[in-house]
């Protein structure tokens, strides 16, 4: 069973569109994250949620809106997509907010035409 799964794996769309990426974890973790990895492979945190509450919003444009319906899910909705949004987006989870290892999904590669 996949621990952290995100869909879709690939997303190709046009500038200006709205899209969503879904993430689910079956590890029973309290904390979930969204990261963006750019073309230079730099992995940067965007959001973190703990027990469905927003903990970190790392100065991400408000076109990005995370939603956590329950502890096991953290979805990412992006409005008015821009060329600079092209990247790989990773979802991750950890037991809690303390110094715990993080478990990552395999990423969603978003390409904006």
């Amino acid at each position, binding site marked *: 069973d996949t621990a*952290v799964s995100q869909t879709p794996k690939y997303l190709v769309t046009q500038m200006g569109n709205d899209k969503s990426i879904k993430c689910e974890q079956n590890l029973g973790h309290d904390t979930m994250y969204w990261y963006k990895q750019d073309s230079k492979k730099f992995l940067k945190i965007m959001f*973190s949620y703990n027990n469905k509450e927003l903990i970190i919003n790392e100065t991400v444009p408000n076109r990005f809106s995370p939603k956590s319906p329950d502890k096991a899910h953290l979805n990412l909705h992006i409005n008015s997509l821009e060329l600079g949004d092209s990247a790989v987006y990773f979802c991750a989870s950890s037991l809690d907010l303390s110094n715990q290892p993080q478990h990552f999904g395999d990423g969603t590669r978003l390409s904006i035409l």
Partner: protein
Amino acid sequence: SQKIEQNSEALNIQEGKTATLTCNYTNYSPAYLQWYRQDPGRGPVFLLLIRENEKEKRKERLKVTFDTTLKQSLFHITASQPADSATYLCALEGTDKLIFGTGTRLQVFP
């Protein structure tokens, strides 16, 4: 601001040798540090965590050191194998988050 540097160039070594990867940081005093492995097209996978009061941590062929005076962590893979080829990321503890380095690509040749 906090800065984390890893070898920006790829590291190429021969099978059987020990690979040593470096993670340096500045303007920062993390309480712990983690190392991850990332394969192409996959998410990072956790390998080891070391705390500031631990000088060294081992797991099978992997060894991590943490020198808070030098502000440096070294990651060693002994008896390296082609299957160890991947990008290795160090990550430092931040406030309720991890701060990742840019990673070092390791290539192990037969």
